[in-house]
């Protein structure tokens, strides 16, 4: 029986008959690192990129996801439109090399609620998430907390102390955000490598307990 080539363009060369790319034949190429990732979530300007840069081996990079939104109502300029809007959303990320040929990626989420649908892509296969909280704008982290809770993705809540000042107790923040007692919470200072490290350790431990 002839096979069906539904997706093969008529102009395409004989891609289908190419052998699969050789994977680590007996060559001297180094083994690829094992890759893991942690998602850094929270509202806009809560310090996600600062957090990532405090511990990343590389300067945080920014990747863009172009998306087309099917606008059904009002565009940003206030004009009614049914056109597609193409916007690009920046996601910052960093990378840490760990012993044992491990690479840990830290991905910052796009800050706004309306990009929540992109998070599915980000969290696929992730260890979990550090949700950064600015107590002056608690409402900004509701979407992140809801998202990870509803998908049962391990997360910890790190209250970023701007200028080293904690304005609220962790218990108050937990209550205000309705965070369940088993979710670790801590103060952090996103500018500080040691504090960032502690938040990551807390998350990985939490993920192991969940696992």
């Amino acid at each position, binding site marked *: 029986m002839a096979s069906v080539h539904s997706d093969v363009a008529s102009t395409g060369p004989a891609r289908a008959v190419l052998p699969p790319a050789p994977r680590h034949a007996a060559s001297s190429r180094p083994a690829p690192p094992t890759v893991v990732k942690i998602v850094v979530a929270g509202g806009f300007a809560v310090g996600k990129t600062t957090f990532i840069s405090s511990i990343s081996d590389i300067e945080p990079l920014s990747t863009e996801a172009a998306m087309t939104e099917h606008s059904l109502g009002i565009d940003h300029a206030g004009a009614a439109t049914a056109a597609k809007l193409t916007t690009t959303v920046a996601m910052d990320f960093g990378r840490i090399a760990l012993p044992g040929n491990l690479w840990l990626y830290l991905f910052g989420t796009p800050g706004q609620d309306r990009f929540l649908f992109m998070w599915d892509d980000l969290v696929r*296969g992730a260890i979990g998430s550090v949700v950064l909280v600015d107590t002056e704008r608690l409402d900004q982290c509701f979407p992140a907390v809801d998202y990870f809770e509803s998908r049962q993705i391990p997360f910890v809540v790190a209250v970023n102390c701007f200028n080293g000042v904690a304005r609220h107790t962790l218990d108050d923040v937990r209550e205000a955000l309705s965070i369940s007692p088993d979710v670790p919470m801590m103060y952090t200072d996103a500018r500080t490598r040691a504090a960032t490290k502690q938040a990551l350790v807390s998350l990985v431990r939490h993920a192991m307990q969940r696992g």
Partner: protein
Amino acid sequence: MSRSVPGRPDEQPAPDVRPYTLTGGRTRSVTGDLPLEALVEALAASPSGRTPEERDLLALAAGGFVSVAELSARTRLPVGVVRVLVGDLEAAGLLSVHGLGSTPGESSAVPSMSLLESVLDGICAL
């Protein structure tokens, strides 16, 4: 230090060239959606007959393992476009893609307990 204007924090103007003109309108890679952190390795020197964007990707992947996210950041191409082009280049045998211990293109597995232990030890040792 000034902050960006509130309300439009993460957005930048759309590029002059619509990104998906680079992929022939395709938004899906032939190999499925690669994870952002999937690692790419060039298998061949940059050949003729590929687009400038594809040659850029191959050149970046020639220097060692590089993630889809880094390819996107360094070429300024959107992630979706990079995924499609990487899929094409992989299908052409010009590069290989390494997943997360699972089959590339499939859903990434949740990290195993032994992997989490290694990560924990590694972070603690930083």
